[in-house]
């Protein structure tokens, strides 16, 4: 056997595969801005170097919203670098990426909920570096780490009211990608909103098991439409959510988007007719929260070692109030939603949260009772 040829081909295949996966955006820097000489350097106040570590850009919601906020900061003169570090399956490389960034002089490392546990060991080793974990509720924060938490239950409560009001069959569904505390908080708020508006409306909750299997999600929703008469769907499922919109189109049902205005992104795309099922989207303004957080840092305020919770009152969660929403949702329902939002803001109405349940079993019992 021609061993030389074999080894050459093997080597070239491996190199090719590595090159392609790297280009595929696992650890690839999308945008860098040269540091501004006059700025950067100090960790107390002023504008510094930020490293935004997100799993992958291009999700049209969560990570892209963060990137939009980082772009605002870039325009203000911050030196921001966005690093796509890949999802949980690449977690073994995360610490190395952070160490590289610290070596390159980045003073602020920003990452989403899953990354908090990887930040923790570094906080004591690098006390001069600040860590910000967003979309996470932590109680064990050291002095150089903060977390931003979004009250997604409050926003979900409002779209839950709308779902109950729009459902002709008194049956709605919330379908998620995979279950985790943050996602369960979405579900809790939604169920609470549906039941407060219409106690007779049933809520089906299901996890499709992947953030990128729209085909499975579509089948899941068709099944709910057939067997549970669901006619309003709420997606908290990342890429799989596209399959939910397909199912809503096929069955003539309504859908609710998440994180950013999904009606708008479909309307701007090549298939605008798909937008016509998306009544509204529950907003989670990740980008805005970055901007306000780093403005506080710039002003030299003491923001470290704390968890900041941002909800309706801070305009960090909410729903899209566009023309399509106004045309299709009756006025009294829209007013009821606005009233509830005002009550939550004023502190008169408290929305149930996943973090209030004593145990996972309590949460499951709550969700099952809604069926």
């Amino acid at each position, binding site marked *: *056997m*021609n061993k030389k*040829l*074999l080894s050459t*081909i*093997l080597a070239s*295949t*491996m190199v*090719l*595969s590595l090159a*392609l*996966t*790297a*280009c*595929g*955006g*696992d650890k690839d820097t999308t945008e860098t801005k040269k540091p501004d000489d006059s700025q950067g350097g100090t960790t107390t106040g002023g504008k510094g170097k930020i490293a935004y570590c997100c799993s*992958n*850009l*291009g*999700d*049209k919601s969560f990570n892209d919203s963060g990137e939009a906020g980082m772009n605002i900061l870039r325009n203000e003169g911050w030196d921001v670098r966005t690093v796509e570090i890949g999802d949980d399956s690449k977690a073994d490389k995360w610490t190395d990426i952070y160490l590289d960034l610290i070596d390159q002089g980045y003073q602020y490392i920003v990452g989403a909920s899953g990354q908090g546990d990887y930040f923790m060991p570094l906080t004591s080793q690098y006390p001069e570096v600040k860590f910000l974990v967003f979309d996470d509720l932590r109680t064990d924060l050291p002095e150089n780490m903060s977390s931003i938490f979004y009250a997604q239950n409050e926003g979900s409560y409002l779209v839950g009211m709308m779902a109950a009001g729009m459902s002709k069959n008194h049956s709605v569904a919330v379908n998620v990608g995979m*279950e985790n505390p943050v996602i369960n908080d979405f579900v809790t708020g939604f169920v609470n909103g549906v039941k407060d508006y219409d106690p007779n409306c049933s809520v*089906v909750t*299901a*996890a499709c*098991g*992947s953030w*990128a*299997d*729209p*085909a*499975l999600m*579509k*089948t*899941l929703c*068709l*099944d*709910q439409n*057939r*067997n*549970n008469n669901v006619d309003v769907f709420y997606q908290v499922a990342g*890429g799989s959510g*596209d*399959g939910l919109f*397909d199912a809503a189109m096929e069955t003539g049902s309504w859908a609710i988007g998440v994180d950013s205005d999904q009606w708008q*992104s*479909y309307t*701007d*795309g*090549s*298939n605008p007719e*798909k937008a016509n099922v998306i009544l509204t989207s529950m907003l989670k303004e990740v980008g805005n929260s970055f901007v306000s957080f780093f403005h506080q840092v710039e002003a030299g305020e003491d923001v470290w070692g704390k968890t900041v919770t941002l909800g309706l009152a801070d305009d960090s969660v909410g729903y899209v109030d566009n023309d399509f929403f106004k045309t299709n949702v009756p006025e009294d329902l829209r007013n009821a939603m606005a009233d509830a939002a005002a009550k939550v803001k004023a502190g008169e109405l408290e929305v149930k949260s996943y973090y209030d349940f004593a145990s996972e079993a309590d949460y*499951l019992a709550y969700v*099952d009772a809604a069926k």
Partner: protein
Amino acid sequence: MTIDWIAFAAEVIRMATPLVFAAMAALICRQAGMFNMGIEGMILCSALAAATFAHLFQNVWIGLLGAILIGLLTGLLIAFVSITGKADLYLTCIAFNLASTGGTVFLMFMMTGEKSTTSGAFRSFQIPTIDIPLIKDIPVLGRIISGQSLLTYVAILSIFLMWLLLKRTRLGLRIRAVGENPHAAESVGISVPKVGYISFSICGIMSGLAGAFLSMSWVTYFMRNMANGRGYIGLSAQNMANGEPIGSSIAALFFGFCQALSITMKNQTNFPTEFLEMIPYAATIIALGVTGMLAIRKRRKVESGQAAAKEE
């Protein structure tokens, strides 16, 4: 709670379609003596090709042709590396699958500037569904069999074509001969590499159809990693039936049934989701174990029969 079991059966057939194609792709290589794990990556590449070609030419059929073409090319690529290049087939397939996971996202990003899905950037095209006259009026059967995607009927047809090819044609005999014993086949003048290339081509066409079904029928866009292990499930389906077309498609149907069942149970029961997601894969292991044991028992019977015959 009322479950519409007729619609459920139709759903099983829909979910089994890509698995049947994947199983057909796997078994033709298996019959030629090669275990082609690269089907997963081939399906992924074809799915992207289907969405891309359909958008570029604004025509669903060109999308389908593009998917078949890319399936064919990727199949020939693996064949070239492993047959002509004599590289290890398993390593080639693993490298190819990894490359296609990243490569499809890379290509999608080059073309659309998106890294997650083409649903916004590319116009969606769907392969039409077909109502079969007469059958569609039969009460239960009509709802199950009629009204499926055109590709589902192609999948059913491909099972019988594959059976005909393997059992009733000269080429099929040669493929099986090479799979059984390449040296013996070579000694009677069959070109082993040529047969290998032909089986990889057929495998490529089948993978192309699977990819087209995912991105132009089930849903109408490409999404990163959208094959989600369906190529591997197809591989184990053919493994359960020892590469027989009819048995493999029954196995693929069984896996489709398990997937559909786990979905219905998610919506209708309180079982933990993680347990339900395990069902299709646990079923794979159990089914492989059971078929393996049956095969061993059969062989033992044959052997003991032969021993008894000798004693007489």
